[in-house]
């Protein structure tokens, strides 16, 4: 019983720390361009967020295997950046095809966001950050899913705030990206409060 808990706890902790203390969007400022572009409405924000969770978790797993069973044995660790990029791109394309083929509804809800994710730096960031930590495969999956979840939470909140702020009368120069960046800045300050709470 105790050993099982001990195995589970780090996974939950890793997920939580990746989602909140190390929030990829608000603490590391990655994936900003698609966030600014898509966060105009809550439902598109959520759509993109869910797609990101799925892709971060799966690409973190795939890239973990690629790194430890392909790059490391060959002594090609320095190629990780470029390898991860192509693996992510190919994976996203593949997923897009599968979703399009087998679930048109899901495709309309999520599929259109997948091409946006191909070049999203948050995804690549998570794949690269995981290498700095001594995680095993399951922990890596948790790290990836947590990172994606953190991004999802952040863009969901930003989308909600932007929908509300549309009704406010803003100074002309602040409309659109201007006020959005200010909002993100304030939210990032709030997320600083989490930092150091979990050390994994």
């Amino acid at each position, binding site marked *: 019983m105790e050993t099982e808990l001990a195995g589970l706890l780090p996974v939950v902790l890793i997920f939580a720390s990746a989602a909140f203390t190390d929030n990829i969007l608000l603490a590391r400022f990655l994936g900003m361009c698609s966030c600014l572009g898509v966060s105009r409405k809550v439902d598109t924000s959520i759509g993109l967020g869910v797609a990101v969770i799925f892709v971060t978790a799966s690409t973190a797993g795939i890239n973990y295997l690629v790194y430890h069973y392909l790059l490391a044995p*060959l*002594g*090609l660790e320095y*190629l990780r950046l*470029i*390898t991860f990029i*192509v*693996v992510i791109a*190919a994976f996203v*394309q*593949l997923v897009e*095809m*599968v979703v*399009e*083929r087998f679930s*048109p*509804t899901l495709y*309309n809800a999520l599929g*259109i966001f997948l091409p946006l994710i191909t070049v999203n730096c948050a995804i690549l960031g998570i794949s690269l950050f995981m290498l700095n930590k001594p995680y095993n495969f399951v922990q890596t999956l948790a790290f990836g899913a947590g990172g994606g979840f953190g991004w999802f939470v952040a863009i969901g909140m930003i989308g909600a705030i932007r929908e509300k702020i549309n009704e406010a009368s803003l100074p002309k120069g602040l409309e659109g990206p201007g006020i959005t960046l200010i909002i993100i800045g304030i939210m990032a300050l709030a997320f600083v409060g989490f930092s150091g709470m979990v050390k994994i």
Partner: protein
Amino acid sequence: MISSIALAVLFLCATGLILALLLILAEKNILNYGPCTISINKGERELNVQGGSSLLSTLAENGIYVPSACGGRGSCAYCKVAVLEGGGVIGPVEEPYLSPEERTSHTRLSCQVKVRNDLKIEIPAELFSVKRYAGTVRHKRPLTHDIVELRIELSDPPAIDFTAGQYVQLESEEYKGNDSVMRAYSVSSVPSDTGHVELIIRRVPDGICTTWVFDYLDNNQQVYLSGPYGEFQLSGTQAPNIFIAGGSGMAPLWSMLRDMKEKGIARETTYFFGALTQKDLFYVDELTALSRELSWFSFVPALSNEPKDSDWNGERGLITDVVARHFEDCSKHEAYLCGSPGMIDACIKVLGGRGMPEDKIFYDKFA
């Protein structure tokens, strides 16, 4: 050193190759929707096609050319058709182009609808007669400093059947990083000349297709066009006509006029042709000769920007003012307009003000 470089290069090439192969295989297998049936206009025609591509390109492969100017990128919204069954939900690319009425009538952009299953669609019957033609440029003749006349001899199929006033879509070739595009131009030749199509093309600054026509297209070059499209044509009535055109808007009216002459349709016709200065005028000799020859036809060229002290004896001023000076009451007339949207809107206003009912004003707007 060398071996590690070789290993890295080899590894990257192998990764790229494997992933590319994987994607190609996936596309072949996953995105294969098998045979689908497209039923057009309540079963008037049935197409058995291989699913997987857009409705627009699937129809084009089967010889039905829905007009499209952007080549299927979802930015021109010309390729609208009614998809009654099997079209799925409206995608985000289509959203901005569909009005509430179009949504209730199941209108979709055919370039954004993928053939995934059996479809029931409705298209204008005239599209059945639209074909894609290969032809050769027989001459490219400057008419003014910024307008050329293209004469294209059709080779495959060798003859076209159209009504004077209709338009075709000319396909530009790729050049200097510009993709091939299709642009609509009215046919200026007469329908009886079935082996040729003539177009009057004005240079649009930075226009992809017109730049290609002006700077890259040569005599004896092979070109492709599809057509005929459009509803702009002479009505069957005997009402007196007012033709109004500006610049390359000459084309459909020049075709209609000579078609009337050939067919002996002697409807009283006054043709107002607007240009900026004398150097922007063309076909004046031909049209003046025609007006001497035909008792029912008169030609009124008008210049809006000609220097006051020039030797021009004809009409001056905006084309709308010239028309207004000539006709007090237009309630019995029909009007045929071709030119820029601004010119057409202004003319509709003036003609309406002189008692012309709106359904007697026919026009071909080009932006």
